[in-house]
């Protein structure tokens, strides 16, 4: 199973067809569909703290693309919050990036891909988990 994780700007870009990186983010999601049609296990997810930072409310009609493309929330539960807190303390990254890092560290999938405009913080937050960073 591969998890494709969206960062703040990826969420912004996906949610706004006028965003100059919109198609850049749609392409990997189209790739997810390509692989799923071939039987591969792939999901697209967004840590909820990232969605908060991006200011995207799923009940807002403008969130329809994220909802319809099945970019699933990963909630900040107690275990992830503890891990994210350690990441913030250890690296100084933002809360949203720490949640993203905690999601990457605990992902049970064989493979984590992060769509991000800030590869450095994503790598720091995710260590020691190796993630594939795709710069948008």
């Amino acid at each position, binding site marked *: 199973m*591969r998890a*494709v994780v969206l960062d703040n700007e990826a969420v912004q870009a996906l949610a706004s*067809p006028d965003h100059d990186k*919109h*198609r850049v983010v*749609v*392409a*990997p*999601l*189209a*790739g*997810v*569909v*390509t*692989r*799923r*049609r*071939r039987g591969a296990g792939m999901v697209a997810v967004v840590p909820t703290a990232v969605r908060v930072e991006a200011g995207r409310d799923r009940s807002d009609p403008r969130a*329809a*693309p994220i*909802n*319809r*493309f*099945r970019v699933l929330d990963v909630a900040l539960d107690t275990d992830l919050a503890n891990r994210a807190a350690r990441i913030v303390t250890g690296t100084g990254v933002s809360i949203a990036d720490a949640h993203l890092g905690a999601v990457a560290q605990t992902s049970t999938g064989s493979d984590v*891909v992060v769509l991000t405009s800030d590869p450095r913080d994503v790598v720091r937050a995710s260590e020691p988990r190796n993630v*594939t960073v*795709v710069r948008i």
Partner: protein
Amino acid sequence: MMTALEVLDRINELLDAEDSSTVNTSMRLPTALRDAAALAVEHLAVAPSTTTLAAAALRSVLETAVMEAALQAHYRVHPEARPSLAEVALALAAQDGSPLAGRPDLIEQAAADVLARHPDADGDDVLLWAEAQQAATT
């Protein structure tokens, strides 16, 4: 009458519902398929039960269908949002950590070559062709 988007939204709601209730459906399975599933559960450990195997397979198919339909609906409203086949292939190469991610020229050419013969080709077809072309020249 539900619109196409309302159908997608409703299917998504149902897929996301935390509903542990079950229903005895009137769906009829071919006997041989049911027996094959039972054997796979018992001997290949593909799932804890034939019910969970069938439910997981159905969920996966529905999720993929909804995602694809959502993309197509989005492209109809925003045609400029539709990535080219080369762009999808490049995105897959990047996700795979493939060296081809650094060769957009090769992927562009491969997409053009593949599309000329196979209009329904997908991003993985392009990557395979690009990799073959690269191997042939090294």
